[in-house]
């Protein structure tokens, strides 16, 4: 027996050593953690159970018969994060460059299947040179089966991708299908075609980091939901995100103890939204004043900044927050903001997280760039996502809510369960200037002083219609509240909606405009 035990210990030691001392040192020299260090940072100490440690490749072409691949370049398994079951895989760049071969992919498929069957979130940690070319079409098939599993698990268990190394070509499509992408600055890179290919085809010169680094995906492409300066911060951020999420679509998000917002928040709420509709403010100040302990996990904070999304808690329960941001692009909805909003609301709906929407938008952004870019089909996603959602939907009209954008931002018409409005709210078919021009055209033209008459009529319209009271009179707004009452009003509404059930006609799936 002792010989057998010695052999086991020796085999374990060898497999756990990955690409060996030199390559592990090289990984550190690049400022990167190793696959096993990453999993240590993710899981509660001592809880990680590794699967398929002794898997190796079974390819013999192109010299692969002589190549060793401990654990075939990916560490897979499960463990506890904050006491809850989570599956994970971490690609090991020290073994054949973390390249994805048939068996490497097979290990990933196995944990994907287990996570789906057991209803647990799965975290994919990417640090890979791409497909293992020597294994040819079997490597390619490995990717395809990852994508298919990502898709089948979408909306069933939360899937999160962590990009802490290269992810090039096909490797980027798994993260793209998953719910959230987290990237480490200077380490993680994603692109479909790399700088060399781009230069040879289009002549453009671009560095790896410029093309696919964390900054690029956080600011320009919107592919990254959160970015971090270091891996340490990244894994802390990942655990923070997981605390808001349920394990699967049939379980509820975990509750925590209710915490009051910072002292004086209710009183300060009265001063955040300026009465003057032309003055900007930061909608996040409203969010901070509403949520437990003022803690708000903003997602995609640098992308489409004219719209704010993120998670927080109200009386201990997870909520998804969406808000127009008046201090950026006047809070207009545009293509990027629509995409950002719709995907987030659909995630919240899939995972039983109530959605709170703050409305202050002058409308969809005008311009040829938006129209040619397809704002019609992108903007339609907002309407679709809100109409489709059956989770509790609470809307708070802070100020401007005009026309199509009013409808889009989770209006009563799209099925909001509770609509609150501040006294500063202006709910109308369009802004006073535009409306007066149309309604009072004849009066303005006939007047002796058309400019003065126009001004007078705009004011008449504003006094009459640019308020929450017409909407309230017609039942589109349920309650007009003192801003200081925001937290009690929202938490009571959420309490009353906690057991909400809303059926949808049976269908295979809808056809959201894409």
């Amino acid at each position, binding site marked *: 027996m002792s010989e057998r035990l010695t052999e086991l210990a020796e085999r374990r030691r060898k497999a756990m050593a990955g690409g060996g001392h030199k390559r592990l040192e090289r990984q550190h020299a*690049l*400022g*990167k953690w190793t696959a096993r260090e990453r999993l240590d940072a993710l899981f509660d100490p001592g809880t990680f159970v590794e699967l398929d440690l002794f898997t190796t490749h079974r390819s013999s072409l192109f*010299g*692969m018969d002589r*190549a060793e691949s401990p654990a075939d370049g990916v560490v897979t398994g499960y463990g506890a994060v904050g006491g809850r079951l989570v599956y994970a895989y971490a690609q090991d760049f020290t073994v*054949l*460059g*973390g*390249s994805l071969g048939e068996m490497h992919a097979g290990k990933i498929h196995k944990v994907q299947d287990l996570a789906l069957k057991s209803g647990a979130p799965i975290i994919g940690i990417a640090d*890979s*040179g*791409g*497909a*293992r*070319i*020597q294994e040819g079409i079997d490597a390619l098939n490995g990717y395809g089966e990852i994508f298919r599993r990502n898709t089948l698990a979408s909306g069933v268990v939360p899937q999160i991708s962590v990009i802490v*190394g*290269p992810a*090039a*070509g096909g490797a980027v499509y798994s993260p793209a299908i998953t719910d959230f992408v987290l990237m480490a*600055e*200077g*380490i993680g*890179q994603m*692109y479909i075609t*790399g*700088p*060399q290919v781009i*230069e*040879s085809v289009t*002549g453009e*010169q671009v*560095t*790896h*980091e*410029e093309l696919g*680094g964390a*900054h690029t995906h956080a*600011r*320009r492409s919107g592919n990254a939901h959160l970015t971090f300066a270091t891996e340490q911060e990244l894994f802390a951020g990942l655990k923070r995100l997981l605390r808001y999420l349920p394990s699967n679509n049939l379980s509820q998000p975990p509750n925590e103890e209710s915490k009051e917002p910072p002292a004086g928040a209710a009183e300060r709420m009265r001063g955040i939204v300026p009465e003057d*509709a*032309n*003055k*900007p403010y930061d909608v996040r100040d409203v969010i901070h004043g509403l949520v437990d302990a003022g803690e708000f996990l903003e997602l995609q904070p640098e992308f489409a900044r004219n719209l704010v999304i993120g998670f927080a808690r109200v009386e201990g329960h997870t909520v998804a927050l969406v808000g127009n941001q*008046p*201090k*950026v*692009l*006047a*809070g*207009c909805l545009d293509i990027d903001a629509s995409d950002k909003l719709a995907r987030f609301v659909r995630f919240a709906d899939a995972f039983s997280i109530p959605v709170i929407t703050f409305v202050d938008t*002058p*409308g969809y*952004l005008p*311009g040829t*760039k938006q129209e040619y870019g397809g704002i019609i089909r992108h903007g339609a996603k907002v309407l679709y996502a809100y109409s489709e959602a059956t989770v509790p939907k609470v809307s708070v009209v802070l100020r*401007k809510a005009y026309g199509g954008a009013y409808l889009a931002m989770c209006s009563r018409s799209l099925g909001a369960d509770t609509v609150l409005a501040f006294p500063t709210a202006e709910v109308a078919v369009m*802004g006073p*200037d535009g409306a007066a021009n149309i309604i009072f055209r004849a009066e303005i033209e006939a007047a002796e002083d058309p400019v003065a008459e126009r001004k007078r009529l705009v004011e008449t319209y504003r006094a009459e219609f640019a308020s929450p009271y017409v909407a309230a009179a017609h039942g589109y707004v349920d309650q007009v509240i003192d801003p200081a009452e925001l937290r009690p009003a929202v938490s009571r509404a959420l309490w009353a909606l906690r057991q909400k059930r809303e059926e949808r006609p049976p269908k295979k799936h809808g056809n959201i405009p894409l």
Partner: protein
Amino acid sequence: MRRFRVIVNGLAYEVEVEELASDGAVAAPHAAAAASPAHAPVPAPPAPAPVPAAEAKKPARKAETPAPAAAAAGAITSPLPGTVLDVKVQVGDAVSEGQVVAILEAMKMENEITAPHAGSVTAVHVKAGSAVGLGDALLEIG
């Protein structure tokens, strides 16, 4: 050489326009040809090594992180078509990242235009009352 009069925001400018014939067309490929050898060779991956994509061989390090693309030109452009209400800085002023440098009235909102990075103001292209289009340069920060 042809001369045109162009009116921008009520100010007339005289511009001269020269049409480039074959001379100009020849010059461009020359420049391109001279430039290309410098960056053309793609390092071949070492033959026996397993083959991660060529890019993956050299993960970029922190030092390579480039400045954000918008900063490259140093120009702050208008995010919306509108009217400049106020320019809060002058050429030579030092500004910090996020500092409000101008107010643009657009979409019925007094939009704050902020500095994308710290630096000093090298040019101001607009003044209070200027009408600007989407993407017009407002000012430049070096």
